[in-house]
């Protein structure tokens, strides 16, 4: 088979295939749109997007595959009569290669804006090629399965069913991680500090490749054996047997989804005796985090605080347990603003977190109110307009630090009473 034929003269002319590719690209492009506004991107998220955008692109590809097969392979088609001498694989390739090229091209185009944004703004890592490849191979698997459905059904009317089946397959990822190894769309995205486990990725690549080849074998076997009469899709069932075996292996062994990213490094700065560190991927948020947290720490008094280190939550796996006791882990990410977590810092320092635990059933307890007032004061400074019945709002910064140092034990234990307040 000369592949040039497949490109120069595909059976249905290029606009048909390009329409499918365009749709696949469009849904990928729109699917990523929520992350276009982020201040920076992470390669881990972008890599994962390659399979996660199959949530709609996959069903569209399956629809296109079923449509092409339904239009071209019914046995009464004059160019598809039983016992045609051209090799069935070549025949399948004549239809699938142009469609696959168009859909992969469209998909890559749809992913391009996210790739460009990530290349421009990411401060750590690189595209995880094997993970991205699972997305591309998953797309091919969707195409082949849809095409096989069209071959077996002998009608393009099966295309909506192919879409529905593929859509259900993508939704199945939400059911948990039991089938993560075999489902095209993996909804678990590795947070910074982790990466998708290599064995899982390798298995997924192998599975999607095997699935594509086996389903293609089954479909071409149907093409070879068929006559004008209907036959049960026996070859398809034979092709499904090894796939079922692979699924059983995957489900019973449940490979780990994530592994620690051993290459991860941190970016740190010490400010007013507090060490601030972020994951290299969140480096753009270090200054913002310091600018948000430092005033709160200053008002509370660094010597009074239960921690003298504020670390990006992404660094938690790399921090020894002993050090973790004196470390505050700050939630950062490209979809979060650096100031977003500072109220939690204030709540932690003011004992609100402890109070929420101690007075879960009594939100109006005086201790709870006192802790909330202290948290508000830490956040807003002396010019606060927040309610300040306790008088904390009237204290100057040195007075506040002194008061905290006198009551630090009670604050941490959520035991501040009205009599303790200034």
């Amino acid at each position, binding site marked *: 088979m000369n592949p040039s034929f497949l490109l*120069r003269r595909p059976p*249905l*002319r290029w606009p*048909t295939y390009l329409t499918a590719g365009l749709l696949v690209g469009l849904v990928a492009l729109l699917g990523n749109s929520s992350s276009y506004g982020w201040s920076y991107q992470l390669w881990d998220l972008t890599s994962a997007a390659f399979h996660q955008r199959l949530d709609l692109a996959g069903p569209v590809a399956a629809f296109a595959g079923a449509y092409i097969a339904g239009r071209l392979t019914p046995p009464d088609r*004059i*160019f598809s*009569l039983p016992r045609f001498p051209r090799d069935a694989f070549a025949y399948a390739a*004549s239809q699938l290669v142009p469609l696959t090229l168009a859909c992969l091209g469209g998909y890559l185009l749809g992913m391009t804006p996210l790739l460009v944004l990530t290349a421009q703004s990411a401060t750590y890592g690189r595209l995880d090629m094997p993970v991205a490849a699972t997305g591309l191979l998953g797309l091919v698997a969707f195409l082949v399965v849809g095409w096989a459905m069209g071959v077996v059904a002998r009608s393009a009317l099966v295309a909506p069913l192919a879409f529905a089946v593929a859509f259900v397959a993508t939704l199945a990822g939400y059911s948990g991680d039991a089938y993560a190894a075999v489902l095209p769309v993996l909804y678990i995205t590795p947070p910074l500090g982790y990466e998708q486990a290599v064995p899982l990725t390798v298995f997924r690549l192998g599975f999607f490749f095997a699935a594509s080849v086996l389903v293609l074998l089954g479909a071409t076997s149907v093409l070879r054996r068929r006559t004008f009469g209907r036959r049960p899709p026996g070859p398809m069932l034979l092709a499904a047997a090894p796939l079922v075996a692979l699924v059983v292996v995957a489900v019973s062994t449940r490979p780990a989804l994530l592994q620690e990213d051993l290459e991860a490094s941190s970016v740190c700065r010490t400010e007013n005796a507090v060490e601030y560190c972020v994951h290299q991927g969140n480096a753009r948020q270090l200054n913002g985090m310091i600018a948000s947290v430092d005033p709160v720490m200053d008002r509370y008094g660094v010597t009074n605080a239960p921690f003298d280190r504020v670390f990006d939550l992404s660094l938690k796996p790399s921090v020894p347990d002993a050090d973790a006791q004196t470390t505050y882990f700050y939630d950062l990410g490209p979809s979060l603003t650096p100031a977003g977590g500072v109220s939690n810092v204030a709540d932690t320092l003011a004992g609100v977190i402890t109070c929420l635990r101690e007075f879960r059933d009594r939100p109006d307890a005086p201790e709870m109110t006192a802790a909330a007032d202290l948290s508000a004061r830490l956040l807003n400074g002396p010019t606060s307009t927040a309610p300040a019945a306790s008088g904390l709002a009237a204290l100057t910064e040195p007075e506040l630090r002194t008061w905290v140092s006198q009551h630090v034990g009670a604050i941490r234990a959520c035991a501040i009473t009205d009599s303790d307040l200034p």
Partner: protein
Amino acid sequence: MRIDITHLSYRYRRGIDAVHDVDLAIADGVTGLLGPNGAGKTTLLSLLTGILKPASGQIVMDVNARAPQTARPYSIGFLPQRFSFANEMRCIDAIAYAAWVHGRANRELTALAQQALETVDLADKANQRIKSLSGGQRQRLGIAAALAHDPDLLVLDEPTVGLDPAQRLRLRETIRAIGDSRPVILSTHLIEDVTHVCDRVAVLSRGRLAFDGTVTELVNRAAHAGGPTGPGSAFERAYVQLIDELETAQ
């Protein structure tokens, strides 16, 4: 080219002898395959085109008689009674794809498709979509698809069914012209197709070959036997008489 069919038999699983011990020689020109419903015409065509494998007997094609300079295996163009196109395709694309599916090389496709379209007088429709064609044009396009790979043998199953008289007339001319360059087997129920197009006629009855000869020979046979007179052509009356004789004998 010459096709020798010797002792060819096929039996369906339910025990019906669809074709039984058929001997038939087919040479260039159009050979009509006639017979009542269930006579085994479609089964014989399926055996000829390789869709079915014979239970016994053989089909030998002497390709070298047609093209002694080529060493390629024989090829068959087949137009089944019921066939379809993908309507959104352009005529030339469908024919080129048919040629490719039948194993022709990429570089030949455009020329082959154009030649096939010219043969069926559809060259001016080459770039039109198939959905714009009339019934007769689609039938001729089907023949073009069967011819696209320049087969050694063309097998047509009821190609004129459903066509209006003008379309039928035109299609007959097309088939007649194709028969000048290669053997054509024309299976039909329509006596007129045979009398206007065929050089030879083979009549099947209950899976057996009941007659093999020219149209004139069948008419003469009936005349010698004092066949019926009345409405219809001489060939029509001769064919009906033959079938009646066979029915009576069986």
